[in-house]
């Protein structure tokens, strides 16, 4: 048996002497044996990868005799066997024939009758002609010798009679390649430290490289947190101080009452807000006088306001809840600002921001979760104007990559005026709401102890929605919460608020991306 090295040598020397190998079927080993097809393919591929040879495939059909076909070629057709068994003079008893020929007797008889070679004479068969030509055997022999038959119809007939079967034969036409040589040089797959050390990289040839990168095994940050980080950077660039929002549990007082949100407001309904079973209430308010001022402004007004004219109850304010907005923290911070102002004797402007979780007692679906993140900014200074708020929003949203915004009058219990911020969405071809903004009400600020000329402007927006747009997600549950797909976390790009990403891309940009 020839080794693959023998075959390699055979192919290379044959090419060297003949210049080309018309058909690898013609290759014979030194002892005259043909070479198995698979062995040839392996060697050819290996040589071709080194560009030492080139080859093309030759495909042709060959017809081989089946076992039955082989029997016919060797000892004649069934009908010929029957004819030969019939004695030219005495014929043969039918029973005798079956004994003599076995299975061939029955098949052969019918055919021999049809050919009018024999006939029945009583219980005997006798010859009807003196001699016959066994064309079936001749056809079988032609196929055995040539691998095919001159008459396609006969081939087809023999295939149908299962005397013949078709096989596909593959062989190759081989020519010299650009790097043809009699000797095979061993090619390296990679550059090694040894090659650098001994300098062999200079003469070594290298295998052709198939490019395929391996993904690195690093860790990944969550896309929502990546967007949060971008927002934080914007706030820091603009000189904002981050608020301590690490308190999910809040009192109704800071969440609603301090914000001048009346106690009958629908948001204070258990249907919308998570009130607590335990701890259910807290009366640990540090500043009873402030609580009294809040009560007064709600029920009877003050600071130029007529108030809401209802019976304010401390019990409502004491109810604990999961904060419905981060504005509960803003209200607390503004109260502290008022305290500091009093202690210092002069007012110092402040800019605060936060990005953290808030809670709503919602039925969860593709666009609503019971907890989500709010981005909030607050600026407190003397005599701020609505124009300041609008101008600042333009700066802020420009940094977010949103250049076109406009403002719609809106209602919010603790800001007056309240302005919804809209931006033009080129994909949806309409103005979509981005967030809310406004100026905190004097009833809220002055009750805290801030001077009437201290104005506080604020704005807020959700973190999840811009993230879903940035990362092309439709279902909020696939972003925040355990239903997230780790592959999504691991394959998502870095967040660049100032670059269009995901669903922000429309038209040509989307196609190019």
């Amino acid at each position, binding site marked *: 048996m020839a080794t693959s090295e023998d075959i390699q040598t055979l192919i290379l020397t044959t090419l060297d002497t003949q210049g080309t190998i018309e058909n690898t079927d013609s290759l014979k080993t030194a002892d005259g044996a043909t070479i198995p097809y698979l062995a040839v393919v392996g060697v050819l591929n290996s040589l071709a990868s080194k560009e030492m040879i080139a080859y093309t495939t030759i495909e042709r059909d060959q017809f081989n005799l089946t076992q039955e076909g082989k029997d016919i070629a060797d000892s004649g057709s069934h009908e010929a066997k029957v004819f030969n068994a019939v004695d030219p003079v005495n014929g043969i008893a039918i029973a005798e024939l079956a004994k003599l020929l076995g299975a061939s007797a029955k098949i052969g008889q019918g055919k021999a009758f049809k050919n009018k070679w024999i006939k029945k004479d009583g219980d005997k068969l006798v010859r009807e002609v003196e001699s016959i030509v066994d064309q079936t055997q001749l056809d079988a022999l032609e196929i055995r010798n040539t691998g095919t038959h001159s008459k396609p119809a006969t081939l087809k007939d023999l295939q149908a009679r299962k005397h013949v079967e078709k096989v596909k034969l593959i062989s190759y036409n081989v020519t010299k390649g650009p790097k043809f040589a009699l000797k095979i040089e061993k090619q390296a797959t990679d550059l090694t430290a040894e090659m650098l050390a001994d300098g062999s990289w200079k003469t070594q040839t290298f295998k052709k490289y198939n490019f395929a990168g391996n993904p690195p095994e690093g860790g990944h940050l969550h896309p929502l*947190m990546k967007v949060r980080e971008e927002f934080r950077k914007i*706030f820091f660039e603009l000189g904002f101080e*981050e608020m301590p929002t690490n308190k999910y549990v809040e009192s109704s007082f800071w969440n609603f009452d301090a914000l001048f949100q009346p106690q009958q407001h629908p948001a204070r309904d258990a249907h919308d807000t998570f009130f607590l079973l335990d*701890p259910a209430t807290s009366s640990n308010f540090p500043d009873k006088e402030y609580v009294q001022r809040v009560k007064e402004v709600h029920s009877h007004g003050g600071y130029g306001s007529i108030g809401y004219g209802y019976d304010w109850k401390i019990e409502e304010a004491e109810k604990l809840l999961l904060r419905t907005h981060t504005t509960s923290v803003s209200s607390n911070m503004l109260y502290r600002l008022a305290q500091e102002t009093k202690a210092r004797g002069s007012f110092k402007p402040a800019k605060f921001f936060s990005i953290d979780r808030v809670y709503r007692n919602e039925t969860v679906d593709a666009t609503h979760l019971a907890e989500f993140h709010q981005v909030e900014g607050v600026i407190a200074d003397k005599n701020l104007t609505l124009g300041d708020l609008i101008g600042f929003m333009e700066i802020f949203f420009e940094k977010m990559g949103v250049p076109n915004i406009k403002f719609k009058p809106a209602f919010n219990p603790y800001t*007056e005026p309240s302005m919804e911020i809209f931006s033009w969405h080129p994909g949806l071809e309409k103005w979509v709401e981005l967030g809310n903004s406004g100026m905190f009400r004097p009833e809220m600020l002055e009750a805290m102890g801030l001077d009437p000329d201290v104005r506080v402007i604020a704005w807020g927006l959700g973190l999840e929605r811009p993230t879903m747009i940035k990362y092309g997600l439709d279902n909020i549950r696939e972003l925040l919460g355990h239903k997230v797909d780790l592959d999504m976390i691991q394959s998502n790009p870095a967040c660049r608020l100032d670059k269009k990403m995901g669903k922000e891309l429309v038209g040509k940009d989307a196609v190019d991306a």
Partner: protein
Amino acid sequence: MPTVNVDKEELYTALGRTYTFDEFMDLCFNFGIELEEDTSPKEMAIREVGAHKVDESVSDRPILKIDIPANRYDLLCHEGISRSLLVFQGKAKPPVYKTVMPADGKLQKMFVKPETALIRPFVVCAVLRNVKFTELNYKNFIDLQDKLHMNICRKRTLVAIGTHDLDTLQGPFTYEALAPKDIQFTPLNQEKNMNAEELMTFYENDKHLGKFLPIIRDSPVYPIIYDKTRQVLSLPPIINSDHSKITLDTKNVFIECTATDLTKGKIVLNTMVAMFSEYCSEPFTIEPVEVIYEDNRLPAGVTPDLSSRTATAKIDYINSCTGLKLNPDEICDLLNKMSLEAVPSKEDKNEVVVQVPITRSDVLHQCDIMEDVAIAYGFNNLPHTTPSVSTIGKPYPLNKLADTARVELALAGWSEVAPLTLCSHDENFAFLRKKDPGNIAVRLAHPKTVEYQVVRTSLLPGVLKTLKENKKHSLPIKIFEVGDTAIKDDTQERRSRNVRKVCATYSNKTSGLEQIHGLLDRTLQMLHCQPVDKNGTASGYWIQDSENPTYFPSRSADIYLRQKGETQVIGSFGILHPEVLEKFGLNFPTSAMEFDLEPFL
């Protein structure tokens, strides 16, 4: 934000012109209401239940869906919207509402019995004379009551409106509170006479009224209004009687609003009469009703009070807030566009005097007047300025520390997840093979989603739930979270506080405990914390074998931290117990660590 459906043709007729969708949207946008869509009841029904289920009789008259700010009750119907938009565009003057006496000079009287204090203490009433109802305005009349009931009336708890055909009744009226079995009448659109107990049973499964029954159901007395002949007008806040119901032929309308909140009762009555006195033979006239509290709870008097409230606003305040330089006349012109009648003050050059009509209960302070100036001027026309507030940016130290830890964990090859902070009690305790000590978890009262029972006290349940959802991910799976948990703490103002923690897990065909241990060492090293001998005095950390029910026996350790001589256990790590894995539906070994981050501040 309430949404009002107005008939498009009726609205455009009232506005004196038609608009394209975009034109009308712009007008709404600038005024501060939001045009949602141009549709029809049929289109809406098809969208909701499918074309095959929508009855032929459902109207396909075009309607506009408009979102209204929650404090503008005067915009909850066609009448209010069309009137305000006409005035906003300077095409009309706001109406002036007047009281008129009846022809015989005798006002209707409502006597309030002392017992009503037990259940629903206040009532305010009015009469509209010679009203001309059409199918359209009748529908608006019913719809407005619905909208008011759902919004300012807080689903009828604060105020309930009853409207009646006055010609079927005889004054004086009495507002009483009686035992349910003593109240007997035929409710609206019913044929059967029933007592109030039967009525409660009759309506308890009613889709529309069922939800209002609990407001009074368990009270020993129910509020009830009678006329002189003991004919029932209504059983507030549930239903009116069939006898006095309004039809298209009704001429004279008696309106009563019973209330637990008198201020809101007055606003609701004012809104009703302001909107529908438009259809009186003499528009915008209202006949008052005398209300007499027999126990003198309130002084006897007439309702409604139609007088506008005089408010003032300072010119310099308005200009300072808006960034404009308007003179008093310009301010008054702008306010008139917002249906606020305003004139420069005669006494004070720095003041405008504003008559706040009964429809504008939202005006509480001069800031509300300032806002109307800004809206009329156009928010998008205001000068843009940049506040020159010089401050220094600063991160919250704990957030900065958490970010450091997050980045180090990701650099170490772990991926960040963001589970929810709300979970079930079992997930937080039993699934981790832990007993609830009873005094740490913050528990929710009435969650709509039943599994939201507690605020997590550990990050582990959320991380394990995330693993469960990612079982098909190739192994090993390495994830982490840095986030807040919450625990009860009576020393705090909010009787609880957040605790920021770090949690990481490693899942593979084998437990990978050494991977988690290595990650712990790396993370603490990055937080400037060195491993130390527990018997020494140096600041740093060490670990010590522990038996912890969450982990596999003999495969867990507690993490000790010593700082300035003080030692505390800050967390633990180990191979998760197979029963924990089973509870969270995990089928590969997992090691976990969790520790408090705050000591590293």
